[in-house]
């Protein structure tokens, strides 16, 4: 192993990247605007939820209930005729249709418990879930206040003091921004290294390297450090300038510790890029294989939906993915302010995965280099 060679080859990679303006623009976009858009787009679960109300009662109470729904959690409810209700759900105009039956107020005052029907489009899972229990509570509150009128009723004897830790107002941007950074780190580190390797193979320059006093190990590690550095710097910039700066998102834990974790993660993902670039023969194959690898890495590593809800088999499969551990790590450090004492197991996992992947890739890479040409 020769440090000078690794340095030189890595610098060459950096120069190549600097020479590709489209690539640079894409990288810049991915770590600035893209993060910003992702942070500002991610809604709270209940935001502008479209609701329609079928008011068959037309009483003061039913109007009072309808008035209780207002932005930002709900769109101002529209009154829907009973005939149009189904169509509205079918076409996805509404997620919720609240049906207040005829004589609702009268029955209630008479001491009966008339049912109110809430139709929910359950294909919109998250919204359906949170929204329906929210609406349930709202209707009950309105009715309760209405019934008690002037005499305030008994306060429920036990007060539930809900405190949301780490993100008191459950603000989505916090989550969206950081998860987007993680996704982009994965995408870029795989494409940068993998595509660079395939390009060298397609152009024949790698063959040239192999007649020089350079070992495959050096070629590989050079690509890893250079592309990894680019991704890591961009990621650090993104966290500090975009997330903390432009978006004003408070970060609980140590950014340095996060970047340290990110470095290990990038080591693993860039290696993965080289692996994909080695097992595929052409850019065309690489493109498809990369997409097929990226989707599960993005969707199933816990950044979109929590791991614990997934079936065990999927959890096992995803346990070998570096991003799974990185997402865990990032959430712990950035949101919950966890320190090294808490996250060291994840760091160790990441390192183990990275090293294993590296050895495997090196073996494949050497073999491929020998069989090349």
């Amino acid at each position, binding site marked *: 192993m020769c440090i000078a060679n690794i340095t030189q080859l890595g610098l*060459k990679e950096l120069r190549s990247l600097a020479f590709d303006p489209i*690539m640079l623009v894409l990288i810049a976009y991915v770590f600035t605007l*893209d993060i910003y*858009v992702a942070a*500002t*787009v991610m*809604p709270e679960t*209940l935001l502008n*939820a479209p609701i329609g109300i079928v008011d068959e009662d037309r009483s003061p109470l039913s109007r009072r209930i309808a008035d209780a729904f207002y932005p930002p959690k709900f769109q101002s409810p529209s009154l829907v005729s009973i005939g149009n209700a189904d169509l509205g759900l*079918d*076409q996805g105009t509404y*997620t919720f249709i609240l049906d207040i039956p005829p004589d609702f107020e009268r029955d209630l005052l008479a001491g009966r418990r*008339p*049912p*109110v029907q809430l139709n929910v489009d*359950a*294909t*919109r*899972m998250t919204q359906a*879930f949170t929204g*329906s229990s929210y*609406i349930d509570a709202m209707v009950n509150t309105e009715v*309760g206040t209405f019934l008690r009128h002037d005499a305030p009723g008994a306060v*429920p*004897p036990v007060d539930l*003091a809900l*405190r*949301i830790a*780490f*993100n008191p107002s*459950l603000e989505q941007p916090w*989550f969206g921004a950081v998860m*987007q950074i993680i996704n982009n780190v994965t*995408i870029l580190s795989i494409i940068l290294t993998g*595509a660079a390797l395939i*390009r060298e193979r397609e*152009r*024949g*320059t790698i063959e*040239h390297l192999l007649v*020089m*006093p350079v070992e495959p190990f050096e070629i590989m590690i050079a690509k890893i450090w250079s592309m990894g550095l680019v991704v890591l710097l961009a990621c650090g910039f993104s966290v500090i300038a975009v997330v903390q700066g432009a978006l004003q998102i408070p970060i609980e834990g140590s950014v340095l510790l996060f970047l340290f974790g990110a470095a290990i993660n990038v080591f693993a993902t860039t290696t993965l890029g080289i692996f994909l670039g080695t097992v*595929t023969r052409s850019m*065309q*194959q690489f*493109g*498809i*294989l*990369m997409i*097929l690898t990226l989707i599960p890495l993005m*969707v*199933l590593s816990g950044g979109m*939906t929590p791991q614990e*809800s997934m*079936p065990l088999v999927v959890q096992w*499969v995803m346990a070998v993915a570096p991003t799974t551990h990185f997402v865990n790590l990032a959430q*712990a450090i950035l949101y919950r302010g966890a320190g090294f004492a*808490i996250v060291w197991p994840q760091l160790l996992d990441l390192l183990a995965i990275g090293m294993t992947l590296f050895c495997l890739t090196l073996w494949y890479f050497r073999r491929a280099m020998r069989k*090349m*040409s």
Partner: protein
Amino acid sequence: MHAVSLHHGRTCALDGITLDLPAGQIIGVIGPDGVGKSTLLSLIAGARKLQEGMLEVLGDDMADAAHRRAVCPRIAFMPQGLGRNLYATLSVSENLHFFARLFGQARAERQTRIEDLLASTGMSEFRDRPAGKLSGGMKQKLGLCCSLIHDPDLLILDEPTTGVDPLSRVQFWELISRIRLTRNGMSVIVATAYMEEAAGFDMLVTMNAGHVLSVGTAKELLDRTRTRSLENAFIAMMPAAERRTHHDVVIAARPADVAADVVIEARGLTMRFGDFTAVDHVDLSIARGEIFGFLGSNGCGKTTTMKMLTGLLAAGSGEAWLFGERVTGGNLAVRRRVGYMSQGFSLYSELSVLQNLTLQARLFALPRSALAARVSEMLHRFELDHVADAMPDDLPLGVRQRLSLAVAMVHSPDLLILDEPTSGVDPIARDMFWQMMADLSRHDNVTIFISTHFMNEAARCDRISLMNAGRVLVCDTPAAVTASRRAKTLEEAFIGYLRDAARGETGTVNLSVSRPAAATRPRGRVAETWHGFSLRRMWSYTLRETLELARDPIRGTLALFGTVMLMLILGYGLNLDVNNVRFAVLDSDNSMLSRDYALNLAGSAYFVQQTPIVDAADLDHRMRSGELNLAIELPPGFGRDLDRGAPVAVGAWIDGANPQRGETIQSYVQAMQLGWLSGMARDRLGMRLAFGSVNVQIRFRYNPDVVSVVAMVPAMIPLLLLLIPAMLTALSVVREKELGSIINLYVTPVTRSEFLIGKQIPYLVLGMVNFILLTILATAVFDVTLSGSLAFLFAASFVFILSSTGIGLLMSTFTRSQAAAILATTIGTLVPAIQYAGLINPVSSLTGVGALIGGILPVTYFLVIARGAFSKALGFGALWPDLLPITASAVVLMVLCILLLKKQEK
């Protein structure tokens, strides 16, 4: 041609050229590298956009698009480089059919023409061999066949015989002259680096630095320059400044008595690829300081032998020694003493000349102090000073070749292995190159192992070896080789050897087919070329793309079965149910009531209880590590106070790191608390709470059990049908740009829409197969019933895949490198589709730019359609409005692609 100029950026490739070329002749264009020969030819062919001046070809203005369309079936253009306009994975006859279709020929006509061309070029036996596996000479013959398929009136050949062995070259020109016999009036314009060839042309145009120096016959040229050979005439034509540096190559005789040690030694070197023997028991022994020439027809195993000697390729059997050491893959010490220059000049196109040299020097660990001096010495020695900051791709071939050599020599190796270093390089540059070789060998005692197709170069070697079909035919001094055949020239001897060998192999192959090439060819003009949209031309590209896909089964398999795998993992894994909430209780009361409260939570299907929390620090630690999603804190005196009716506060800590999950947990806890309270109130206090007096009946429609599978599986189909077809098409155009075959779009009658739609069709079909697979998977494996209209879903998928392949094409059209196309497609499809299209959060809930993006993404609307058709039992009636934006996007994307794609090179 009048005052034609062309600029690449700041450099001027052609400077006010005025030229009249008569029809019906063979016109040669000669000149040093990088003087604008190729640019001139591509302008005449209409492949490049005219910038300044006036150019009339076959009677009309080439700046006029209508004329170009009309005239292009009468012109054929064969670009520089071996088989650059051919498709490597397609077979010989498939390539020919592809071109024939582009010129609108029907099956019967195609068949006769192709048979005819194959027979006359002696390629009939190889009709099923992929073009990429042909030797260089054969590639050029195939390229010529492809150019002649439509009976052009004007044939433009850009260095057609560069890198081709002498025998193939002779055959190539025989072929051309035969064709010209039968097609009177066909004009041929050829650029060439071989002066022997140029001597046979009717007329010669010499060029230098973007100017025309002379026009006339070869004889006139000789007379004017008072030289005897064209090579010398050419040199004499050059401006004095350039000529001054040139002098005849002088190679001192090798001292005969030196008992030199052997540098290269090979015994029984053999290499097999499958059942094909590339190198067959080659023995070599080369002494120090010797210039050893390695000759042979294309594909005879020269390159393979060289690669085995450098250790790039492990020898199949046999052994080789360099400097007395066994050649193994990993011997770094030996590598330091060898300089290797491969056929393709593997330079880093993204590094400048200086950077390429410096990198090489550093990799060979030149001492830092000497490095700068050595690099500038090399720049100076190879006359690269003035281009030190230029990019290799912007340089002419000859300069690139000098750079390659400089790179190979920067570390002062003892042995140079050079694989066809002079192919495509002009005579002056070649002579200069050889003088350097000679000096290195004689002064520095460097051993040089060189392969070449130039016979005058071979004659300069100390010894040459002639290789054919993997075997060494003869190995001796050039004079001895010539004498052994009793030939006049080395070339004659060489061709003699090759012809003998060919006869020996196949017995009866008659290499000089005497049958006139086009005797049986239907005379008269090609069927009038249809200028509107031609299905046949489009089909030609469709077929080509399909064949390429078929030749690379890994890609198709990945696309089909990869998605099936992905749907399985995602369908199960992408779970939005919030369950398995891990909670623990910090019970400071430990009364019956407090335990009951905890039990109530633990009894829920959503919650999983963990070991109790000990104290506040424990709570903090476990929340931070993410072990707990929820911590319940029951204060001291909880039971007592509750019994007394005094206000009690329960503390609930929820992990809000993932806000959506936090919110859901919050509503769960609230509901559980209410339930517990009303239960307790009923049981213990006998009172009814006003709270919860309305029974809200919640009906989860379409997905009564609120399971993720029902919501997610139909959503996976749009996602996968977007990503995979887009990625498949994303490389289709940019790949042709990188490999050079895009030239076929420039010079054949195919229109941009035919080109793009033709490329789109195979991926559309593949996408539909994918759709069918995924739908079967959804219904059969995931048990998600397709309750709505299958017919409508099918039709909508078709339109949707049109749109997603359109995205891929668009990315492919505007990017210039494959890597950028991949990145752009990923960022343009994967990220927005997962986040802004309503996969998880309905688009109506999005805000800001994301909502805007979500609104224009076709996948947003297809998600609605897929969910509607699967879960909501809907069909055309309810879903047609969502089909409109998808259709619009497909159309807009195609129009954008057509507008962005250029029919000519700039």
